[in-house]
């Protein structure tokens, strides 16, 4: 069961952050808040911060999956859990990249 969790955790976290950031985007556009921070519109800053947080989270998870004291015991589970760990990180970078690439509320 532990191994199953190791295998599932990173993509699960991706799913959660992905949905949350999509929700945040909907919320910001639906309830137009105004203002700027660091010379950027506040929407962009908030979304960017969430994106950064998601990336850090995935990096931490990946780190844990490689760490001897937290990694799975069998070779197979180690392989699969690290593979899905990479999936989590790459999926986060890839699928949330529009945060820094596209217009946000049109």
């Amino acid at each position: 069961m532990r191994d199953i969790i190791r295998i599932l955790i990173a993509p699960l976290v991706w799913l959660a952050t992905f949905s949350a950031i999509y929700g945040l985007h909907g919320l910001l556009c639906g309830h137009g808040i105004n203002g700027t921070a660091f010379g950027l519109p506040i929407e962009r800053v908030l979304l960017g911060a969430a994106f950064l947080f998601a990336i850090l989270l995935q990096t931490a998870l990946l780190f844990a999956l490689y760490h001897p004291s937290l990694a799975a015991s069998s070779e197979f589970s180690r392989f699969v859990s690290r593979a899905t760990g990479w999936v989590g990180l790459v999926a986060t970078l890839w699928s949330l990249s529009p945060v820094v690439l596209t217009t946000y509320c049109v």
Partner: protein
Amino acid sequence: MLSTVDPAGPAAQTIATLWWVMLAGASLIFALVMVLLVLAFRRKNAGDDAGRVRAWIVGLGLVFPMTVLAALLAYGLIVGERLLPREGPDIVKVGAEGRLSAWTFTYEDAPSFSTDGTLHIPAGRPVDVAVTTADVIHSFWVPRLAGKLDAIPGRTNILRIEADEAGTYTGVSAEFSGTGYDSFTFYVIAHDAANWDAFLNGDFE
């Protein structure tokens, strides 16, 4: 008449180009896969599994698609950005309200009247259509001018269309709406500048 590959406006043109590029790319990839598949049947010399995993799974299965897809995604996002209804000086604003089974069009420049079944626009100028519905979901689609956009109860969606030249373009409602759906069509008439002014002044047909 309804062909997306016979574009008559910038948005439809951009998307048609996108389609031809994707078709070319897809054909190449398809050919590659089929060749690999056929080659599997010839006599081969032995190799080791580690090498195969590197070539097939990491090379062809990971690096290759990610490269192609990254390029495609970038292309798609750029095109998408270009087609958005951004603010601008020359924009004509009209409204399209769908109801089973007809469209009613209103004009910001001529608030006093509306037209049923035919939308009038000026040629060569960007037009923002505010799409709404009075009943179920519909979709506003003039294939030769631009992509489609849904009319959702309680919401107003803005679609940017533009016709390069004066003429009549056919549109359809493109979200299934029950028995009248087959014949749920409308027309867009693009006028040259003079006719457009005449239209706004109320003297047409």
